[in-house]
């Protein structure tokens, strides 16, 4: 039991399960999944589908945070990527063809990769503090996106693009497969090669890892490029969802939610050890919470209060001070058991 509690995914997993159970108790329909036209529908499926943009962004953010960095520009990158992709589709002769959409997506993601290189260059080569270096693009990016769309909200009609966010594959939402693929690829590359360990080394102690011969510059730059690329894909999914490029609303506040998801998943903002599985759980917690708030009939404008309460609750659950207090409380309860030698676990 105590080993289970010690596991780094215990508390995030517990929070997610608790949320799902609470929802199911409050409204049994929550867990219901129905089949219509060969595709699955229901609240859990919606959560898996709607998680896609935040999941991609949070995935990149996890790597950036592992190197002691932070990427505030992801929302702006989403806006740029969506603007680029939809402007290309809008301007083409055959907006409905798969080829056009593929090219548009590739160009959109390509531009995002370049923006990621820019962030990475500022942080790893010029050694500017990440929060400020990415603030530059966060501010300028939406301006660029507005320039690309001429200040308008570009709308398109294109079935292949619609498929990205709303289509189904094997009964499940296509967007779900996108994020699962992204998570799988990143996990494989980070955990089945030394890259993950090197990334953590850079985050734990940059100086020591430099002395050990780790090429921090390339690794840090790489994480920002990955973050940019994933944000670009998230931007495409967002645009596909509303079939429009909205430079102001695309990815608004997503950087904060993504960072929140990463932290909920147990990755410290101080860098170092990171958990991709934790981030996945973190994003699912946030999405489930959104769905809960919607169900409670709270105006979506007021939902931040709930998020504040949950953030406080979750960080308190994870806080060492609370763990200490809880342990002391348990110890005092079992004070009649005389020999508690320091260091031994108090079995519950």
């Amino acid at each position: 039991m105590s080993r289970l509690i010690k596991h780094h995914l215990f508390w995030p997993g517990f929070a997610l399960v608790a949320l799902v159970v609470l929802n199911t108790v409050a409204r049994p329909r929550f867990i219901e999944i129905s089949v219509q036209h060969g595709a699955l529908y229901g609240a859990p499926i919606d959560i898996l589908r709607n998680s896609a943009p935040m999941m991609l962004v949070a995935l990149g953010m996890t790597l950036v945070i592992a190197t002691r960095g932070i990427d505030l520009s992801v929302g702006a990158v989403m806006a740029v990527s969506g603007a680029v992709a939809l402007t290309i589709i809008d301007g083409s002769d055959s907006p409905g063809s798969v080829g056009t959409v593929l090219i548009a997506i590739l160009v959109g993601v390509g531009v995002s990769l370049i923006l990621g290189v820019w962030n990475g260059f500022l942080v790893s080569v010029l050694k500017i503090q990440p929060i400020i270096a990415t603030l530059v693009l966060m501010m300028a990016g939406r301006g660029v996106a507005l320039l690309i769309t001429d200040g308008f909200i570009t709308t398109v009609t294109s079935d292949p693009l619609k498929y990205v966010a709303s289509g189904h594959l094997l009964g499940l939402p296509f967007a779900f497969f996108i994020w699962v693929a992204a998570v799988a690829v990143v996990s494989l590359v980070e955990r089945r090669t030394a890259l993950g360990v090197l990334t953590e080394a850079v985050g734990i102690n940059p100086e020591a890892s430099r002395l050990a011969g780790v090429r921090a510059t390339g690794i840090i730059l790489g994480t920002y490029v990955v973050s940019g690329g994933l944000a670009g894909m998230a931007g495409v999914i967002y645009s596909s969802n509303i079939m429009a490029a909205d430079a102001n609303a695309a990815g608004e506040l997503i950087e904060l939610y993504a960072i929140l998801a990463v932290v909920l998943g147990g990755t410290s903002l101080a860098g170092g050890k990171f958990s991709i599985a934790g981030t996945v759980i973190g994003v699912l917690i946030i999405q489930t919470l959104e769905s809960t708030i919607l169900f409670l009939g709270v105006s979506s404008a007021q939902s931040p209060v709930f998020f504040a309460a949950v953030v406080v609750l979750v960080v308190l659950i994870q806080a060492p001070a609370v763990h200490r207090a809880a342990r002391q409380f348990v110890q005092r309860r079992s004070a009649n058991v005389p020999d508690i030698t320091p260091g031994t676990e108090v079995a519950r």
Partner: protein
Amino acid sequence: MSTTTTTPTAGRRIVPPRLSEYARTFVARHASVMPMLAALVILVLILIGAQIHFGDFVNPRTLSSLLLDNAYLLILAVGMTFVIVTGGIDLSVGSVMAFTGIAAAQMLDHGVSSAIVIPAMILGGAVIGLMIGVLVQYFDVQPFIASLAGLFLARGLAYVVSLKSIRVENEHVIWLQSTRWWFGEWYLTPTGVLALLTVVVGALVMKYTRFGRTVYAVGGGEQSARLMGLAVARTKVLVYVISGVCGGLAGLVLTAYSGAGYPRNGIGTELDVIAAVVIGGTLLTGGVGYVVGSLIGVLVYGTIHTVISYMGAEQSWMRIIIGLMLLMFIVVQRVIVVRAERRR
């Protein structure tokens, strides 16, 4: 050095050091002030450039309204400076400003006296700041996340109070904005005086009080500060309370300025404030920074805004130019810091 002679008894021929050497020593000795001076130089350059371009930019009217328009930003920047110098960050300021503003507008609308409302605003800001500070200090929550919780809380509460904007007709609050004290061509409003007072008090506290020095010590090295027996815990909580108080005060000033409370006020303001503080030479890693620098940072920020609106440029260009300006400042500061470190 080549100035020493072979016969020491004959004394040394003293060659006066060249001007560049004076400059070099000055830069090395005052490395921490350099980013602030760079910001000042750039502010002057922007003003000169705008004067040449528009012909009539640097006049008492424009400069007076610069202070008036950015009073709330200035107050927030002072609080933020305290937090950032300890190595923390406070993302909640924009939301706290919106929350206290809309709450005050609502209370005034219900006929509550301004003598109660204004202290309540400041208290409200302080309480949210206290919550963030306690989370940071006693529960080891990272400042970014703790203040993010503050941001969500204050923004949500603002919407709970009202979804629409509420007009403020209270004479005392209106007085803060509508009064003009003229000094020849120049004028000051009570809101501007409040902002300047905040700067003066902030600067004095940072420089001359035990608390202020502890703020620097915590930012320079928390462990060392603790070993020196400084009140680290109290200081770290207090800086967030100060930032919250500044948020409440800024809420008052903004409510007076716009004549209404509005729950969507100040979205993204925290980033403007951080940008202004950084432009003013405060390092986000903590330990280095000046309240006066933040004043300069806010003035730079405000001047750029004014210049862009004079040019009639689009909103999209505003964002790009502010972003580029920020970049320029960061690179300039980086170069200065690197050169100062190399000389050491």
